[in-house]
């Protein structure tokens, strides 16, 4: 029994409790312990990934109860990948939040942040469908708290939409689980897989309903159209570091789809295989189009970043929906890319917003910023990554997806959608970037003329160093993902191997019957 598997869940939960208990009046202590926890999490998750890379599937039976009767955590290549991604992103985002002072603009940021991490890690690690629901709840409520962090009218209003919409999703999750439990009498995912494969084809109706309701639940999290309505306002109005962390939250939905529809309702399962993939594909194409058009139409950079997040989920889910070995590799690569690049974009937008004073993130000319060149370079990098231009990982990911859908029937529709929307996104980013960074408005008339250095100090405060470092750190990860595409896809191929041979997973969880 390898206790490290549960550390990513227990550590942040315990730390959050301690933060509330004894550090809630000590910002410095909160910061130190929060960062330390995230650093430890990166180390632990990396270690777990090294373990999973060998191909072993680690099963952690909570309370020492055997599956399917108790709850299990399962560490395989996929979950290891997702937790490493989360941990790395969390560390960068946390440093940004601290450096920019976002963490002090409301109460309990660090505790909520740790609870949020606990929820995300739990969702990635659990092998039990109901436990997944519980972790969805944890991450929903924590994310709501983080989302409204700092308050403000627009943010609170967006928060109401966010939480109400997602509570609808939670209700649906219960319906779906109830249906599946009623059909199978179990909640453990491996056990579900076994029992469902034994259900006769002439009794598939209820099973199909359960499968599709579950899909819709995950589709909400993954912002798949037409269930994405919670996302634009939420992401645009959330504090930037939180929005950046949310980049991995949509991936929770994608992860859950991948897990459930390879393990439980696999591509070989006759009852559901004909509807799951095509449904996701159709919706994903629309998602991509709406997201990219949203980039073009956005009036604010925050909203632009939000629609970019939707668009990238579209591309990701297109890859996912094919459910082949190759397409899964592509979708997973895109998952990593989209999380890092999406977060990067939110942070850059926030750096810009902080520097532009009253103009905020509106796409209109404003007086020049301090460090204009630096911010422009960062925005350029983020835009290239998100729009899928070379040489960053977005382009590699896009090529992988294009290549992976080659054998599908509607390859022309998919290709043209992906390529045309890339152009739309490119235009959107070019317009936004040239207005914000190139088309500077003259300095306000009433600014007194001062000595050069003094004038600079007055009109444009230098951005603090730590947020810029954290942002560059993320940009660096995007570059690294692109350079190391070979080794990364190597790991992803092994991951796909594991996913499309679910016997290994089932065997590890419930053993030989």
């Amino acid at each position, binding site marked *: 029994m390898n206790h490290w598997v549960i550390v990513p869940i227990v550590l942040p939960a315990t730390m959050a409790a301690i933060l509330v208990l004894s550090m809630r009046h000590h910002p410095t202590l909160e910061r130190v312990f929060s960062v330390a926890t995230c650093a430890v999490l990166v180390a632990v998750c990396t270690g777990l990934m090294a373990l999973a890379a060998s191909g072993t599937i680690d099963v952690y039976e909570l309370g020492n109860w055997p599956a399917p009767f*108790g709850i299990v955590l399962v560490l395989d290549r996929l979950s290891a990948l997702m937790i490493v991604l989360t941990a790395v992103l969390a560390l960068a985002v946390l440093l940004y939040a601290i450096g920019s002072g976002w963490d002090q603009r409301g109460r309990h940021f660090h505790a909520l942040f740790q609870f949020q991490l606990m929820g995300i890690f739990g969702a990635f690690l659990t092998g039990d469908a109901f436990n997944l629901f519980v972790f969805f709840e944890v991450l929903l409520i924590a994310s709501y*708290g983080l989302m409204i962090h700092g308050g403000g009218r627009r943010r609170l209003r967006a928060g109401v939409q966010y939480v109400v919409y997602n509570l609808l999703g939670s209700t649906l999750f219960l319906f779906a689980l109830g249906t599946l439990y009623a059909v199978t009498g179990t909640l453990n995912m491996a056990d579900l897989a076994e029992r469902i494969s034994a259900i006769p084809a*002439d009794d*598939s109706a209820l099973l199909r309903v359960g499968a599709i309701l579950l899909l819709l639940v995950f589709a909400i999290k993954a912002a798949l159209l037409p269930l994405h309505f919670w996302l634009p306002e939420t992401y645009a109005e959330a504090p930037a570091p939180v929005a950046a962390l949310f980049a991995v939250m949509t991936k929770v939905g994608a992860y859950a789809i991948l897990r459930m529809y390879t393990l439980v309702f696999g591509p070989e399962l006759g009852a559901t295989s004909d509807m799951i993939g095509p449904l996701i594909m159709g919706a994903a194409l629309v998602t991509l189009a709406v997201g990219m058009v949203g980039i073009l*139409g956005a009036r604010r950079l925050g909203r632009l970043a939000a629609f970019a997040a939707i668009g990238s989920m579209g591309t990701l889910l297109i890859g996912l929906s094919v459910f082949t070995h190759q397409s899964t590799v592509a979708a997973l690569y895109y998952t990593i890319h989209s999380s890092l690049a999406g977060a990067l974009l939110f942070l850059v937008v926030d750096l810009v917003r902080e520097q532009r004073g009253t103009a905020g993130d509106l796409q209109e000319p404003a007086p020049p910023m301090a460090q204009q060149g630096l911010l422009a370079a960062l925005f350029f990098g983020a835009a290239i990554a998100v729009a899928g231009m070379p040489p960053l990982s977005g382009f590699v990911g896009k090529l992988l997806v*294009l290549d992976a859908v080659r054998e599908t029937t509607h390859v022309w529709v998919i290709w043209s959608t992906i390529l045309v929307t890339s152009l739309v996104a490119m235009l959107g980013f070019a*317009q936004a970037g040239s207005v914000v960074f*190139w088309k500077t408005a003259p300095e306000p008339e009433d600014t007194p003329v001062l000595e050069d250095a003094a004038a600079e100090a007055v009109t444009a405060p230098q951005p603090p160093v730590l947020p810029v470092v954290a942002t560059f750190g993320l940009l660096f990860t995007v570059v690294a993902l692109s350079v190391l595409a070979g080794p990364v896809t190597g790991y992803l191929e092994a991951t796909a191997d594991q996913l499309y041979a679910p016997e290994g997973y089932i065997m590890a969880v419930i053993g030989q019957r």
Partner: protein
Amino acid sequence: MPTMETAGSFLPIIAALPFLGALLPGLMIQAGRNTCTAFTLAPTVLALLLLLISAPAVMRGEVLLFRLDWLPALGLNVTFMLDGLGLLFAGLILGIGVLIILYARFYLSREDPMGQFFTYLLLFQGAMVGIVLSDNVLLLLIFWELTSLSSFLLIGYWKHLPEGRQGARMALVVTGLGGLSMIAGMLILGNVVGSYDLSVILTQKEAIQASPMYLPALILILGGAFTKSAQFPFHFWLPHAMAAPTPVSAYLHSATMVKAGLFLMARMWPVLAGTPEWFYLVATTGLVTMVIAAKIALYKDDLKALLAFSTVSHLGLITMLLGFGTKMAAVAAVFHIINHATFKAALFMTAGIVDHAAHARDIKRLGGLRRLMPVTFAIATVGALSMAGIPLLNGFLSKEMMLEEAAHTVWAHSHWVVPVLATLGAVFSVAYSFRYIVHVFLGPERTDYPSKPHDPEFGMWAAPGFLVVLVVAIGVAPVLAEPLVKATAASVTGGGLPDFHLKIWHGVTPALYMSAVAVAGGALLLAFHAPLMRLWLATPRPEAKTMFDAVTRAATLAGRGFTDSLHDGALSRYAGIFTVTVLGAGVFAWTGGASLPATRAPLPVALLPAVGWVLLMVATFALVAFHRNRLMALVLMGIVGLIVSLGFIYLSAPDLALTQISVEVVTIVLMLLALNFLPHRTPAESGPAKRFRDAVVSIAGGVAVAGLTYAILLRDFAAESISAFHLDKSYKGGGGTNVVNVILVDFRGFDTFGEIIVLGIAALVIFALTDAVLRGPGGRWLTSWDPVGDEAGDRHPLMMVVATRVMMPIALMVGVYIFLRGHNDPGGGFIAGLIVAIAFLMQYMASGFAWAESRQRVTYHVTIGFGVLIASLTGIGAWFAGRPFLTSDYGYITIPPLEKFEWATAMAFDTGVFLTVVGAVMLALNSLSSMARRTGETVNIFPMDINPARSDDDDDGEGEGEGGR
């Protein structure tokens, strides 16, 4: 492991040097403009040297290769190849790059950030070198798109100019569009061949041309080439890219960016050319572009615009030659690529010099410069004459070859279309070339130049001077260029070149006649330029920029309109879409499957549940009817909750019933308190249509849920459910006879762990939210808020105070009892927590928050934190016994004189649950009360307002905050 051929090991260095070097100028500018230039030159020159070192092998016919695996799964690898074609282009890019850098040093003014400029330039240079050295088409695509991106930065370099910004965007969009189409084309090509390596693709001519995917692939790839090389109808971006500083124009539009499209066509020539499709697509496009652009160039007054359209025209010429598909045409194309690069770069630089010296680029404001700027005049004249195709200059040679090829090209059975149009293009070409000389340098000297023209310093004319030396040298002794042309043409055509020699005199051929006609016609056109110009200006013609701007503007507005109307922020609409989607998907799933007959018979309807059902329905419908009255709605919700609890009891689930009832009580009380701050009635916001829509959607949703439940209830589990195990193991393994509680704290204790955290977070969120609201406009609103309606005369009535005091110990005892019995009988930490919270809640309601809180020593944050921590530590405790998280243990101890009783670690866990629940409820209450206090609600010192035992002096129960903390 990466494999590499040693001969090609320079290649990645050549490609990487500009990129690595791009880091330098931005830094070195601190050390001055000359140092900055030197550090820009260094990587370029070094790369050029390495290229020259590799050149002899290539000239011998070798192909240098380098290979490093990058993404083998996709077939995307870092593979470089250097053959004749690559050598020519890399030489042009780096060689002219050196000259441009020199020129730019003198061209850029002190206000221009030179470091940035050179950084962009080197990035662009690297991307171009990458294109021409790539052996892998996917790698080539990467560099291809990089040129679009870096040229975007270069064209927009003067960011204060709107033309610069618009030109940059236009170039990015058009060439980006082509790049995307090329991605598709290359993917198809790779699929047909089974490899993305050019060295493999180029050997597969038959397979590619026989494939049904040949035409789509061809069109898509040409889409990339045509946009990049500004072929009609994608030519319009190029003139607008002239807003860039002249060194950029000279570089991009003579030797590099626009030549990338030609390079691509030349590169793919061996496998794509030679079919009718290729001929008609490429040759026709080239021909049309050549003629139209040449004509437009004649009417452009801006020097750079003239040169821009002439560039488009010459690109069309080369495209046409490549399109002919014959080997000699390919030779001519290669030769013209070299010649065009030399004279066009020189001409752009002279245009920059004139602009620099006279501060004008408009031909109408120039003229008579030959004496003022003799050196520039000389350079410009040689360049322009070469462009016009005058003998003894290199432009003549390749133009003759072009006309020769055109003379015997048959287009759609017509022998005259191509030669006539080619000659016409040449006529225009001569005319605008002459105009560049005559209208700028000849004629009378003027007095109204914006600035007094003069020849520039040597550094500025050195580069174009060197280039025109080449123009003349090749023109006089074409044999100089012959080895390079041969090597290049050999790799374009895939070997097997006819034996040819580049020479000045070919005898009296049709081409010579055509050339003569062109020169004469051109001179004639120029003579009548003024009336022709008036005619041109009078004819309406489509303006590409206006159209492009209109399209992008319309797209942006349409995108904005669509996005904003789809995401209008109406939650009820979002929820409606959600419900309809779920219903649709559910019905789709159900109807697509098959269903066995029911395995369970419905039970008969008994009286008791029927009564409950009727009550439930009545309460629900009443709720819909009266929902605007918020208090009433709350009461009705209470009824619903109560009946649900009763339902649990009826269905033998006492634990659930207990939980449900206590949750109901707590939530109703908290919501009652919250109602305080809301209007009594919900305003009517939706019209009848909307209400009807919502009614339909929600009834359909309700029916669907009922149907689903009905279907579920009529069937058995497919296999034995896991609950049998829980029933069996509850006492033996979990140490409790209440299986529900054992599930909660043991079998699925981890779920409970998560759920108490949810509860704890919720309380923290309520606290943080209240804090945020109070600090924001909400707080100001509360301060100025005047509660409507009557307040209670006696806020803290004696009766209630006394009753709650009496109840308190009883309630606490009940809590403890429920907690302790939980493991074996209905109860447990969660319910106990709620009961205790209700007991406290009653104190608060009776005597006010501040009074009650001041009698408590713990803060609720601490309670929540402790609760989660205890639960967590209980789980961790199991690690020390070598067991997984949350493994429970139990045993029996006897403490005399008591009887033996059971202990279980689950009890500790349950304590954590208990504390979290109490803390969460109380923290929520605390938040609500802090809102109340913000509205000006006073804090009472005494437990009740009217106390008969108190003397009259201090019978004022309300003080200003002394009682609160």
